[in-house]
């Protein structure tokens, strides 16, 4: 059997637990299956623990045993695609939406997404921001066609539940014994760098404008979408606010 086949069968054994095809090619003085299980455990436990480490707030919300079971399922179904475990788990919250727990905790997926985004922005490093003076030198007629690059420690997310309030309760350890969550649309800007983070709500038009810019679309398109949400939206003022916040680190025409 060639090396590719051996590694294919080994992959099956490690990720899914199906070891029947690799077993004839393994050797050891004592129980081969127990020894193979060491590698199976290394794979599962290292990734499960990595996920638990990234979602402590979610564990607080639903309990570690449940989260661990979901993490086990996730690592079996979705192995990492790159050797940077820091990047692994962005899709993990989506698994909650498919689980029966979503019926009881319908905001679980959004809460976990907020937690992922917080973790992402907190390890970013700020880049030098463009100043209003630098941008004022640009011909105003070119502005609508420009795209802007924002700080890496910025994320935008919308949710149908006030998960930001829930996150604040977790972070400040001030959760009451009983909390009645009511659905309500929230548009969040999550900002962080060098180990720090914060998040705040934006009004719907400003959220559309900023998140569209962050997605790499033209200023004109972002403004048009924002105006579609609120015809009174002042995109000039919103653009200035974005720049004065130090969020813009690059532009391309």
């Amino acid at each position, binding site marked *: 059997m060639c090396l590719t086949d051996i590694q294919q069968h*080994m992959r099956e054994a490690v990720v899914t637990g199906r070891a029947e095809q690799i077993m004839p090619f393994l050797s*050891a003085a*004592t129980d081969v299956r127990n020894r193979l299980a060491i*590698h199976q455990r290394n794979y599962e436990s290292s990734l499960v623990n990595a996920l638990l480490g990234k979602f402590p707030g979610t564990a607080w919300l639903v309990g570690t045993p449940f989260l661990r079971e979901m993490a086990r399922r996730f690592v079996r179904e979705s*192995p990492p695609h790159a*050797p*940077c*475990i820091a990047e692994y788990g962005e899709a993990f919250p989506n698994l909650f939406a498919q689980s029966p727990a979503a019926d009881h905790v319908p905001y679980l997926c959004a809460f976990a997404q907020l937690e992922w985004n917080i973790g992402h922005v907190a*390890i970013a490093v700020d880049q030098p921001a463009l100043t209003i003076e630098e941008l004022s030198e640009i011909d105003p007629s070119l502005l609508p066609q420009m795209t802007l690059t924002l700080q890496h420690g910025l994320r935008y997310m919308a949710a149908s539940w006030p998960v930001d309030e829930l996150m604040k309760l977790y972070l400040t350890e001030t959760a009451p014994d009983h909390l009645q969550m009511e659905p309500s649309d929230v548009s969040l800007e999550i900002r962080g*760098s060098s180990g720090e983070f914060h998040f705040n709500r934006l009004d719907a038009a400003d959220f559309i404008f900023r998140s569209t810019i962050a997605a790499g679309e033209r200023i004109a398109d972002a403004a048009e979408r924002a105006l579609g949400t609120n015809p009174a939206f002042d995109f000039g003022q919103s653009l200035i606010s974005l720049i004065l916040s130090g969020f813009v680190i690059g532009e391309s025409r």
Partner: protein
Amino acid sequence: MEMESMSLSNAAGIGLRLPHILEVAATRPHVGWLEIHPENFLANPHAAELLCELSEHYPVSFHTVGISIGSASGIDNNHLKRIRNLVQRINPVFVSGHLAWSTFKHEYLNDLLPLPYNAEALQLVEAHLHKVQDNLGRSYLIENPSSYIGFTTSTMSEVEFLSELVRRTGCSLLCDVSNIHVSAQNMGFDAHTYIDDLPSNAISELHLGGYTPEEGLLIDTHAAPISKDAWDLYAYAVRRFGPKPTLIEWDNDIPPLTTLLAEAKHAEHIAVEASLKEVRVVSH
């Protein structure tokens, strides 16, 4: 501490993990050098920035865990490029990785999986080693793995495989003394003979890490102090290879920084003692 005042050749270093990075940056403890897993820094710009600062005060070594030099499905070019970018930024004294594989096609299995030791695997590792060294523009040290299982398709021992790899490529080796002890116990070979059979001139670095006994096997957990057996084997390795940069690895259940520093001090003490014994043996 200034880098010029340190001699890497006789120093012991510690594996710098993320829980300690702020403390090391703030206190700058006296330690010979630092080794990091670059994969922990590629997607963490804040940690990479701190590492960049630390590299101005300590020699830094890269110990890769994701290059996967034994993967039959090839080396991940994107990952290699990211490692190269960090290498160019930090300029580490060594870059090393394991005689193992961890990626299959586009999946990363987050473990160091074993290879059969035969001509096909040797040819593959040789080709990948050339590719990695060409891409990084520097030597890439190969570390002996800790083993739990072998393959019926193996036609040579691990030490024969490594020696042939050195003969073919001129590569250097990172000799993990604890891995030799773990593998010798698990696979039933003599650890001292293994050390005797390694090509001495190729050894550039030594590793020591803790293991955990479990159901008659030793598991390479890097979650415990170095055992007396491993220290004794380390002294034997120093007598055989001479003093080498030695690293204390501790990756799970990470203790206070002071514990790691004390282990590094102990490694330096044992290396000095072992070197003196070697001199006495030579002078007889």
